[in-house]
């Protein structure tokens, strides 16, 4: 009862902030829609100097809005910081300028061509840039940006070199200011809509998963590089659209548009508007344009100091930008009104695992089951080795895992268990040897391929998507693993929703389904981790110390769940564990590793009584410590 109440309250409060954000978005969109008539009216009233100038600022803001939102597609949705985005904007502008001035093609045809050129440049350079990750990716985009700038600056015969391309004339159809505004607004509007659909789609879900946790994203079957390249290219495409609109307000296209420091504009705009929101950067563009126009007029000498102070203030004090205002207002209101329950509890109590309903979990639709042939070899390792420097972490391991088996790997610290898991799941490439899964050679294949092939994984350290809700964690993992994240339309949050909730309820996470996963206690996060592994519908699951950090009773509960799911839903289990009661209570086969090699393999009984194993452990553990839990 109490949990249901908490869930309801948190849903209600989240809804209120959500509704406020939607209302704000609609109000501002309508405001943008009525800008020309309102400014004409205000000019008539003598309240503003020039309606035409306001409209020009509006057009400038719209173009900047598109540019910034396309930047945020990478930054906010995939966590990529690029220094080359201005270059694609520039490429769009150059394409239009060249087609117009050199080939006398109509503006509208050029407008259609520009995004394609920008996307082409984007995909080629993006392919290079994505050879590196995170910070190094950013630095690589910096180098690429400067290269593209050098090309624009030096290729006289095409780009006009340092002088750029000048004297671009606005097409006759668009010389009227309101018409120009609505034309640009229409193009920007359609582009924003397309990007909005994309972010809500399963494709967008994959991006969010990558942003949250690359490693986890890979292990649920997402080809991280491919998705990053896709979003990089799409962002370049829309930057190209924005760039193609640029010549409507600026008659000259010059190389400095491509210079890396130009990226400061969309980044600052995104920051002002809010990295975490779709439309935030769009409104950030209006704020920025207005602010820049008035400040540069009245405080030209102080502008940089003021702008710097604003950016610094936002970074340090309101990192969510403009879009976080409704949330902040809601928080303030709660504080003032004294409404007790904050929508976001600092941490949950970590009682999910004790609430696990094994019977329901086993029936959950989220878990796929296949017919299996018990006893057939599913995974075969042949002479698998891996050295780090001089150390042979895994040394010529030969191992067969049979379908339907529950196979434990034990051994003292440093025996090579985690490395072995990494070799199987493609996180680490083997120095020698082969990995066969279901008759397929998967040696050294990337993690997402291995995941897709049917090997799921739970990590030793908790690997979840912290800022996504618990439900999304599960849903997006399912989407990814079932190959649906290629779909760039439809609402990701609606797909597999019921299945996810069913499983979450069963594993005791139901009350927290709509909380950001990162806010859950450690124990509850382990439960999410477990639920993700189960929901992937893998034929085989690798669990790396699944009960690390759990209490004895939680451990018993969690392992009962794992065991039952494995038996009833035909899963093959490979796990490593220090807790011998877990090992002997769960495993049918046990393999002992020592110093990277396999010491022995057998039934739990054989292992328990083997003197050599006991010698390895040297009394490190008491084999009879606890009675194994009943199967």
């Amino acid at each position: 009862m109490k949990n249901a109440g908490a869930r309801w309250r948190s849903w209600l409060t989240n809804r209120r902030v959500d509704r406020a954000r939607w209302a704000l978005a609609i109000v501002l969109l309508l405001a943008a829609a009525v800008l020309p008539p309102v400014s004409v009216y205000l000019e008539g009233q003598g309240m503003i100097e020039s309606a035409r100038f306001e409209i020009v600022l509006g057009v400038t803001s719209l173009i900047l809005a598109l540019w910034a939102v396309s930047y945020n597609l990478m930054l906010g949705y995939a966590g990529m910081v690029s220094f080359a985005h201005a270059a694609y904007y520039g490429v769009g502008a150059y394409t239009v300028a060249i087609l117009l001035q050199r080939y006398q093609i109509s503006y509208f045809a050029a407008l259609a061509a520009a995004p394609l050129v920008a996307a082409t440049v984007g995909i080629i350079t993006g392919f290079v840039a994505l050879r590196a990750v995170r910070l190094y990716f950013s630095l690589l985009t910096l180098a690429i940006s400067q290269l593209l700038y050098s090309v624009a600056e030096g290729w006289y015969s095409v780009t006009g070199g340092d002088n750029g391309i000048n004297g671009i004339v606005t097409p006759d159809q668009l010389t009227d200011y309101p018409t120009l505004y609505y034309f640009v607004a229409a193009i920007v509007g359609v582009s924003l809509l397309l990007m909005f659909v994309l972010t809500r789609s399963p494709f967008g879900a994959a991006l969010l998963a990558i942003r949250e946790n690359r490693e986890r994203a890979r292990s649920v079957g997402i080809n991280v590089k491919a998705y990053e390249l896709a979003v990089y290219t799409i962002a370049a495409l829309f930057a190209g659209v924005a760039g193609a609109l640029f010549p409507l307000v600026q008659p000259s296209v010059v190389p400095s548009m491509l210079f890396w420091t130009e990226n400061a504009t969309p980044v600052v705009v995104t920051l002002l508007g809010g990295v975490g929101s779709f439309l935030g950067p769009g409104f950030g563009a209006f704020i920025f344009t207005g602010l820049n126009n008035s400040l540069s007029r009245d405080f030209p000498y102080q502008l940089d100091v003021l702008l710097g102070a604003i950016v610094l203030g936002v970074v340090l004090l309101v990192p969510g930008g403009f879009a976080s205002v409704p949330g902040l207002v809601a928080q303030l209101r709660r504080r003032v009104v004294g409404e007790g329950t904050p929508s976001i509890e600092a941490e949950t109590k970590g009682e999910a695992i004790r609430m696990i309903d094994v019977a329901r979990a086993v029936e959950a639709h989220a878990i796929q089951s296949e017919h299996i042939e018990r006893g057939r070899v599913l995974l075969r390792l042949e002479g698998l080795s891996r050295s780090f420097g001089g150390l042979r972490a895994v040394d010529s391991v030969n191992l067969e895992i049979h379908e339907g088996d529950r196979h434990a790997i034990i051994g003292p610290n440093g025996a090579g268990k985690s490395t072995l898991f990494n070799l199987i799941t493609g996180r680490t490439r083997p120095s020698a040897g082969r990995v066969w899964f279901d008759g397929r050679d998967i040696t050294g294949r990337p993690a997402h391929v291995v995941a897709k092939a049917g090997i799921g994984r739970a990590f030793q350290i908790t690997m979840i998507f912290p800022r996504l809700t618990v439900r999304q964690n599960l849903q997006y993992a399912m989407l990814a693993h079932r190959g649906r994240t290629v779909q760039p339309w439809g609402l990701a949050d609606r797909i597999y929703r019921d299945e996810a909730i069913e499983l979450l309820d069963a594993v005791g996470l139901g009350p927290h389904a709509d909380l950001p996963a990162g806010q859950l206690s450690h124990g509850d996060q382990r439960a999410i981790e477990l639920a993700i592994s189960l929901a992937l519908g893998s034929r085989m699951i690798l669990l790396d110390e699944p009960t690390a950090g759990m209490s004895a009773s939680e451990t018993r509960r969690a392992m009962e769940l794992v065991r039952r799911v494995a038996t009833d839903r035909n899963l093959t289990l490979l796990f490593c564990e220090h807790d011998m009661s877990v090992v002997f209570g769960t495993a049918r086969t046990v393999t002992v590793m020592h110093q990277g090699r396999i010491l022995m393999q057998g039934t739990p009984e054989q292992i328990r009584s083997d003197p050599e194993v006991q010698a390895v452990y040297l009394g490190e553990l008491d084999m009879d410590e606890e009675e194994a839990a009943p199967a």
Partner: protein
Amino acid sequence: MDPGKFLLFATGGLADAAYLFIVAAGLSLVFGALRVINMAHGSLYMIAAMVSVVVANRLGAGIGFLPALLCAVLVAAAIGAVIETTVLKRVYGHEHLVQLLATYAIALIIGGAARLIFGSNYRTTSTPIQGSLTILGYSYSLYALVMIVAAILIGLGMYGLLFRTRLGRNIRAAVSDPELLNASGVNVTLLYTAVFTVGAGLAGLGGAIVAPSQAVDPTIGDSVLVLAFAISVIGGLGSIIGSAVGALMVGEVISFGLINPTTNSFALAFVFIIMTLVLTVRPWGLFGRPEA
């Protein structure tokens, strides 16, 4: 190309490399230990150049150089310490975009403030060391040679600092294994402030050293920043030897690239081609270590 000419252009490249090395080494050190890309590095360089020119001219051009240099380095280091303790402290561990934006904002503020304080005029001062050498028929600036020697000494000094002192050991630990450092009981907060202060001081040193051969105005940091980025990335962020090699490559590529008719237009592009190649093949740079 005869040996005399070759020596001439090679030395020209060395002179470029010298001041770029000093600036890039500071950037690289800060990144290595703090994992922060400091966009305000060029501004610290600029402010130090400005201060050194103003002070040197007040004390009397030439003689005033050394005290002015000291003063400029101290000012840059002090500003660095203030930035670290007031702003960077709050953004450690954040995504690197947050740090980029924070330091970018600081760069804007320093640049704007410098203009408000010093104006937009070009300021010039004289070198303390005048005169030239003639080798194989060509003249060499004595000051440029001194600058090269100074860069080598600074490089050696940094090497000594990093490998012969306790502070250095801790800095190296911060570069290679921050977690271990946390566990070892070192005052990490203080260490980070120290590293950033040293990095800022190096930017200042670079600025003060080139100031006598340049028109100094509030924009001089911009072009240096991007080259310093390129150098520290090519050499490997966090590696002093890397910065030296990177600076040499960039200096020589520019020196020889500009005089060659076929490469003249793209001399600067070459720097970024090298940067792209290094990052794609060895993202952690020629002398850096891959991040765990």
